[in-house]
């Protein structure tokens, strides 16, 4: 194997493999850059919400999709990120550029601890364990003086140095940069040693161990990384909404994230992004529809609040039944169809 092969390995390992991907990505970036000038404030706020969800979904997919560890407590890590940054900036006056990474690290630290039982617990038991963790976090947030329970807590505006991220537009760009960074880092992780260890553990843990992969280290690491992503997402959410209550991080948020990665495709980066966009978009879309039909059917308004969770549940079940690989599976089939025509094998 001579040196000239290395050039092709590098190509083979490239982040964006084909010209098409690069073209589409450029178009996407262009559209995102223009979005604040083309969309209403409300529409922009939906995109911000989606961007934050992308970060959280990437984290959960690394844990559940790639490493095969089910978590029903992802919402709790967002809560930890949100409250950590809220308290650090509010009570301690720490600048946002410090509280942001610290909120991720705080969540990661707790994620590592939650990960320890995962060495013993698998499948349903792990799901129950993480669910319990979610309830504990919610309970603490409700009852701890500092977090002010269901009265909620005000969160300061995000500011970088002297620049206060005040406008919708500024926050949009800010979140998009983070979402893109999160996606690239996740992609890098999964195309390197770390990601292969995760998938190996998911597919065959005993064989993985016999291939020299330390199970404990990587299982716990997956929890840590996943929680870090969740913490960052939570922090961005807190400083955007500027008002946080424990109720917005309850089990329904965790289920929304499960719905995102299942709908998008377990164990895929693109799937995490697509799933986050759709699941975040669906309630808004339904609100829009019910608004349109409000005149003729007044009973419809308010429906969305009650049925959001049910809709997510339905999406999970239907996806698992009819397209277990999620949207990414559909994407892959379409791509394969075009690939077989005419030259590519």
């Amino acid at each position, binding site marked *: 194997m001579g040196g000239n*092969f*290395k050039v092709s390995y590098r190509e083979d390992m490239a982040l964006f493999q084909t010209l098409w991907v690069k073209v589409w990505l450029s178009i996407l970036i262009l559209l995102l850059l223009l979005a604040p000038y083309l969309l209403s404030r409300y529409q922009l706020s939906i995109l911000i919400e989606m961007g934050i969800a992308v970060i959280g979904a990437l984290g959960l997919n690394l844990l559940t999709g790639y490493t095969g560890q089910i978590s029903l407590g992802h919402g709790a890590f967002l809560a930890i990120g949100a409250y950590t940054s809220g308290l650090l900036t509010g009570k301690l006056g720490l600048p946002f550029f410090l509280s942001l990474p610290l909120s991720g690290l705080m969540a990661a630290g707790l994620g590592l601890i939650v990960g320890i039982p995962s060495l013993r617990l698998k499948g349903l038991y792990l799901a129950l364990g993480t669910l319990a963790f979610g309830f504990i976090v919610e309970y603490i947030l409700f009852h701890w003086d500092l977090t002010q329970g269901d009265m909620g807590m005000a969160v300061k505006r995000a500011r970088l140095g002297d620049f206060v991220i005040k406008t919708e537009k500024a926050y949009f760009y800010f979140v998009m940069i983070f979402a893109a960074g999160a996606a690239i880092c996740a992609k890098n992780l999964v195309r390197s040693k*770390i990601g*292969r*260890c995760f*998938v190996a553990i998911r597919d*065959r843990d005993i064989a993985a*161990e*016999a291939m020299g*992969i330390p199970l404990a280290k990587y299982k716990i690491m997956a929890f840590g990384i996943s929680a870090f992503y969740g913490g960052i997402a939570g922090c961005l959410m807190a400083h955007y909404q500027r008002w946080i209550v424990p109720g917005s991080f309850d089990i329904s948020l965790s289920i929304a994230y499960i719905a995102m990665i299942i709908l998008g495709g377990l164990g895929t980066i693109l799937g995490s992004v697509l799933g986050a966009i759709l699941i975040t978009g669906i309630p808004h879309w339904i609100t829009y529809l019910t608004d349109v039909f409000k005149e003729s059917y007044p009973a419809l308004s308010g429906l969305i609040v009650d049925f959001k969770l049910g809709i997510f549940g339905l999406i999970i079940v239907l996806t698992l039944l009819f397209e277990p690989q999620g949207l990414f599976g559909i994407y892959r089939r379409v791509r394969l169809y075009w690939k077989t025509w005419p030259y590519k094998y």
Partner: protein
Amino acid sequence: MAELKKERPIQLEISDLSMGFGGIQATRDVSFSVHEGEIYSIIGPNGAGKTTVFNCISGIYRPQEGSIRFQGREIVGMKPHKIAHLGIARAFQNIELFRGMTVLDNLMSARGFLLPYGLFRSALYLGKCVREEINARDAVEEVIEFLDLQLFRKTPVGGLSYGLQKRVELARAMAMNPRLLLVDEPVSGMNLEETEDMARYLLDINEEMNITVVLVEHDMGLVMDLSDRVTVLNFGIKIAEGPPREIGQNPEVIRAYLGEERIQGRS
């Protein structure tokens, strides 16, 4: 040749290995030593405890009694991944590939422990990480070429034929750059041609790469052709050890196999 190899130092030394599961005693006081560069076979009827011996060596089971020394070092009680790091690789009897991965990624993941970069370099995919990945790819490509898997590099392993999956099992073990290779029934369920290919690969691995091979196999033809020495297990007890020719004529071995007719095999 067998005599010559005996002069070499002992690489793997198993003494008085006993492993039981509840009421079943899978192995009882099994002892044998494997010299560096040998092809050493373990044979015996179904349920004789062959795979159990492998699982003890790999650290998947912890034997109740006995010791296993690899290159002079006690490995009983060590974690499986630590044992793998010492240079003991394993190809499983029942295919245990990482099904969601391509052939290439299966091999790359087995090589992971030889790549020293950490989480942050991995997330940024810069510098050392890229270099290490390329080096690993280089090494893995050599294994792919060696085992003629070029056509299936990017194929998900679940889509391969049984025979090919067995070969990927071997390739994945080889990607670990091992000193000692444990191969559990590499040709079970294979046709004649595939069996001959596998025999070639095992011989080349042993002779060209100078890797010690411990082989568990029911195909007596293969065992007789390849092995320097053979140990026979029956109901968890070692009943004979020696060069293949002697083993084939050993009355106790023939009795153990009576009714199984396997000792005749193909040769």
